[in-house]
């Protein structure tokens, strides 16, 4: 049993949140960790460390309502190149995104020029209203990257969307090429990461391509 304030529990929770944002987040839903209620850790011989978590979630677009969630995060033994296994079960209903998704989808599809934006939020924490869906989609995209690249010695957060450019496609998906700044809490590094996201109202978010931006340490 771990105190929820212990860093190991917080790091595992961050991995679970990354996974949840990727799977359940999108332009119309941004999941935040409201509270970590409980954490247990199990050391499994020849496998790794498994964390059992009880989380309280909140949709930033549906504040005032929390939803409970149980998650399991397995960090594989000794491996830095294998993503942790995550399972998560949300208890209850999250606010429907159907309308918001449709509105966003149609708005982007009807743009004459490809959308380009940068610095979301800006230095002062501002996010223009019309860019909030792109911000939340970045959260979903960063969720994938965070989930895939976390170890027990890291804790990632999305610090900022440095740049986003839409890429028009012939099929039904929307495509956005992001440069995200990820803040890694343990080393305190802010790491630029190139992430391509495909999104569709029914199919949700997918990350076909991502890479740590080459360059400075």
């Amino acid at each position: 049993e771990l105190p929820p304030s212990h860093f190991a529990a917080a790091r595992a929770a961050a991995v679970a949140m990354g996974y949840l944002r990727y799977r359940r987040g999108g332009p119309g839903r941004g999941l935040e960790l409201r509270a970590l209620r409980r954490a247990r850790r199990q050391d499994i011989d020849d496998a790794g460390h498994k964390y059992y978590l009880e989380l309280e979630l909140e949709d930033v677009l549906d504040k005032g309502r929390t939803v409970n969630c149980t998650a399991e995060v397995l960090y594989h033994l000794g491996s830095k190149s294998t993503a942790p296994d995550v399972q998560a079960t949300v208890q209850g209903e999250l606010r429907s995104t159907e309308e918001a998704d449709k509105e966003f989808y149609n708005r982007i599809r009807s743009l004459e020029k490809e959308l380009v934006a940068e610095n979301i939020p800006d230095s002062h924490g501002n996010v223009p209203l019309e860019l909030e869906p792109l911000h939340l989609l970045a959260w979903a995209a960063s969720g994938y990257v965070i989930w895939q690249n976390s170890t027990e010695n890291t804790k990632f957060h999305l610090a900022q969307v440095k740049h986003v450019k839409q890429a028009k496609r012939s099929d039904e998906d929307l495509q956005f090429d992001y440069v995200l700044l990820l803040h890694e809490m343990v080393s305190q590094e802010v790491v630029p990461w190139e992430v391509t996201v495909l999104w569709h109202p029914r199919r949700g978010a997918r990350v076909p391509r991502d890479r740590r931006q080459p360059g400075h340490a």
Partner: protein
Amino acid sequence: ANMKLILIFSALIGASLCLETFVGHQVLRIKTKNEEEVKQLQLLESLEHLQLDFWINPSAPALPVDVRIPAVSVQSVKAFLESQGIEYSILIEDLQDVLDKEQQDMAESAQRQRSSSFDFGAYHTLDEINNELDLLASEHSFVEKIQIGQSYEERPLYVLKFSTGGSNRPAIWLDAGIHSREWVTQASALWIANKIASDYGTDASITSLLDKMDLFLLPVANPDGFVYTHTSNRMWRKTRSKIPGSICVGVDPNRNWDAGFGGPGASNKPCSDSYHGPSANSEVEVKSVVDFIKNHGNFKAFLTLHSYSQLLMYPYGYKCTRPDDYAELESLGRAAASSIRSLYGTTFQVGTICSTIYQASGGSIDWSYDNGIKYSFAFELRDTGRYGFLLPANQIIPAAQETWLGLKRIMEHVRN
């Protein structure tokens, strides 16, 4: 109307120079009915010994005549008017009352303008912050701006000293912005400085605190980094010192203190954001604070603001063992977190640095604790990652308000 302004202006100058008051002076409005009455008033006007001051001189029957009458002459002038059947009304019962109120209004308006010209709910540049420090020091006799050193790029390190007297009273240290990208901390420090300065004398807790102790507040502990976050890279954390043999710049100032220096949780790579530097206190920003506190010799608390994560931590970071005062610090930390939560429901986790974030060597509160300053706490302010370093400006004041409650709780304990 011009007459009035001139009068009020000279009255204020006069009052401030203690030359003249207008206590008991009355201003009458006289309504003349005919030429005869106008002539009577012109006669009155000629009597210099009465020292009548006509704001509207008698000229034609249709026009009102306004006159200021010194207190000693009021009764006799009224008696004269009544005996002549000349109608009048009292415009101003006591001129000094009007002037006093006017002066008060002007002072209040000026005060509002001064305080409201600095928007505490917005992010500011270093110059704007330094100007506000000057303003606070000039507005309050117990607030003094002192310079404790200068940064690598030779920017002054300004500390606000809050002291109501005594000689080297037991003191509390509070700093912000040692990591420059943590903008809510410098912003909160300004709000807190203004809060303390404004509420001394009216708030019982602040008053009793400053009557016994001094407070030293360093709102921008890393000015070079701060400027860099404005001009070049919003995500800059470290100092801006050149590192011999490296193309990379800057040292993590919170790994540079002489507490387990160079141990786990700090990097020896200059390009790293947690680079500890070539040696302990190599950073002038750190050395200046160390020297100041050592020379003072009477600090009882060392408090430092960071963001983000909503944590309230005490030593140790460089080792994962509990400090001797664990029980008291844990208890005080919980009480402070409870005070923070009481305002907006914001929850802060409490614990040692090592168990709450990570093992990290060379940190400031470990140094202060090992140097005899028992009440050493590090705050990580809002939020928990939604905006992270880029906290929207509309959260500055709420963050500052709740943080202040936590700080106050700790300071009250120290005072007692």
